[in-house]
């Protein structure tokens, strides 16, 4: 990972400690029982990590985006669900920070988020939109005296019932076009999330993401001024893809590490004997290093593009293609590495209760191609490839 400043090194040291001492011991149970990783989230709160990206001027940790990505990687190595909750929360924080208007309500909100270590969940998907995040059915509706209300049916809300606040995409007004979207933040007490399904999936079981009906009434100032399409292109999409890729890389890296530990243990037991697993491990390392290279270059390109005036480069079709490809590649490669680890470890990796178990790793990374369906992203890329001048 890239070179970080000393305060960020301290931040990452804390994250690694939480990953090793809190997330890791609970990971198996969080997965088996499909329960929220409450201990890890509390530990993150205790060190102020939920406000790590909030600027120092507002009381937050002021760490760089690179440090956040590294944190997702570290947590991913120990518990995929914990890492995903952390990543999803940070995506919302980063989005708000990157589109913060001076003097807006959101400045005060970020201070509160910091002092109270509030957890934000995202409500972007919606029943009836076919998975198109760029279109909403539910609309912001005037409710009198400077307040607005809405009701939205979401097929999935990650850790929705455990979040303090929700950031929701909506149509700007009852007569607005489906693509004319805004982002609204509601706090506990302003919204009611009625869970409508169950959460018993193959992987990422601890993210507790059943669907629900969300009803809320809120002051109109709690709507981000920048229209959502711009927020989506400049922040939400690339940031999501980068943080997710880092945690998937973390999971895959731990799977590789277990495979390597297995090979070394085997070598100790049978010193001097040929070890086919060692050769398989070498193949696996090639696969892992490709994933690592793609994830690392995606982060670097995003940080460079974010530095261009007005973040112009992030609005180009070439950028959209690049950060879509990051998600497509990483979501494909991470489970492949985990499956390769299974191939190296054999039966001991296949069993769930050994030091070399990689079943959870495989199942968690298999969620990657579904959270935003890859086929949908390929279709978008297909359109972009036809239209774009440079790719």
């Amino acid at each position, binding site marked *: 990972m890239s070179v970080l400043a000393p305060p960020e090194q301290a931040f990452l040291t804390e994250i690694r400690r939480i990953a090793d001492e809190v997330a890791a011991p609970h990971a198996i149970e969080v997965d088996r029982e499909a329960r929220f990783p409450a201990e890890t989230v509390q530990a993150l709160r205790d060190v102020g990590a939920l406000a790590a990206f909030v600027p120092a001027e507002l009381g937050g940790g002021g760490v760089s985006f690179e440090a956040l990505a590294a944190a997702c990687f570290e947590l991913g190595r120990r518990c995929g669900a914990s890492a995903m909750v952390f990543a999803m929360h940070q995506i919302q924080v980063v989005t708000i920070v990157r589109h913060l208007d001076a003097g807006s309500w959101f400045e005060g909100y970020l201070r509160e988020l910091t002092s109270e270590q509030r957890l934000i969940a995202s409500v972007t998907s919606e029943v009836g939109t076919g998975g198109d995040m*760029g279109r909403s059915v539910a609309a912001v509706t005037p409710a009198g005296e400077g307040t607005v209300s809405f009701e939205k049916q979401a097929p999935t809300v990650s850790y929705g019932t455990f979040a303090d606040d929700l950031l929701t995409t909506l149509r700007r007004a009852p007569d607005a*076009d489906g*693509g004319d979207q805004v982002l609204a933040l509601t706090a506990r007490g302003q919204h009611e999330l009625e869970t409508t399904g169950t959460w018993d999936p193959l992987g990422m079981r601890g993210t507790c993401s059943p669907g629900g009906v969300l009803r809320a009434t809120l002051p109109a100032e709690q709507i981000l001024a920048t229209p959502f399409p711009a927020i989506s292109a400049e922040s939400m999409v690339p940031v999501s893809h980068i943080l997710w890729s880092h945690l998937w890389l973390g999971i895959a890296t731990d799977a590789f590490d277990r495979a390597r530990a297995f090979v070394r243990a085997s070598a100790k037991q049978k010193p001097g004997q040929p070890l086919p697993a060692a050769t398989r491990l070498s193949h696996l390392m090639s696969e892992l290093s490709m994933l690592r290279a793609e994830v690392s270059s995606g982060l670097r390109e995003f940080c460079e593009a974010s530095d261009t005036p007005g973040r112009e480069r992030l*609005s180009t079709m070439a950028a*959209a293609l690049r950060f879509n490809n990051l998600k497509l590649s990483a979501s494909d490669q991470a489970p492949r590495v985990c499956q390769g680890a299974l191939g190296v470890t054999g039966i001991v990796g296949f069993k769930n209760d050994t030091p070399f178990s990689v079943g959870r790793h495989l199942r968690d990374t298999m969620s990657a191609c579904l959270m935003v369906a890859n086929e949908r992203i390929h279709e978008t890329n297909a*359109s*972009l490839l036809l239209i*774009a001048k440079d790719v």
Partner: protein
Amino acid sequence: MPLRVGIDLLDVEEVEEALSAHGERYLARVFTPREVEDCRADGAPAPARLAARFAAKEAAVKVLRPGAVALPWTSIEVERAPGGAPGLRLAGAAAALAGDAALGPLALSFTHTHTRGLAAAIVVAETPASR
């Protein structure tokens, strides 16, 4: 007449063809970067939304009545006021035409269908005769 009004209707298919045939060149000649960004759905510009904005520009042209004056498409921009209704921002030749005719602010409404492939817009402006 106290008002000038302009209306336009077009097939979204025309925009799809222009995107396929000319890609970003078409976008750059007709739309501003902000308009293109506002029309992005899942990253790629949505033809229906672009078509609605084109209809808005053409409706505005009918209100501005350029005659022999050259009017680049990008001198009329569809914008969104923060949390507010869509509006039109006029620059260059478009702004000059509106100023010369002493028109009031241009009011805009636009729409597009989801299945029938049509986009439409209407623009209205007060003239000096209304005051």
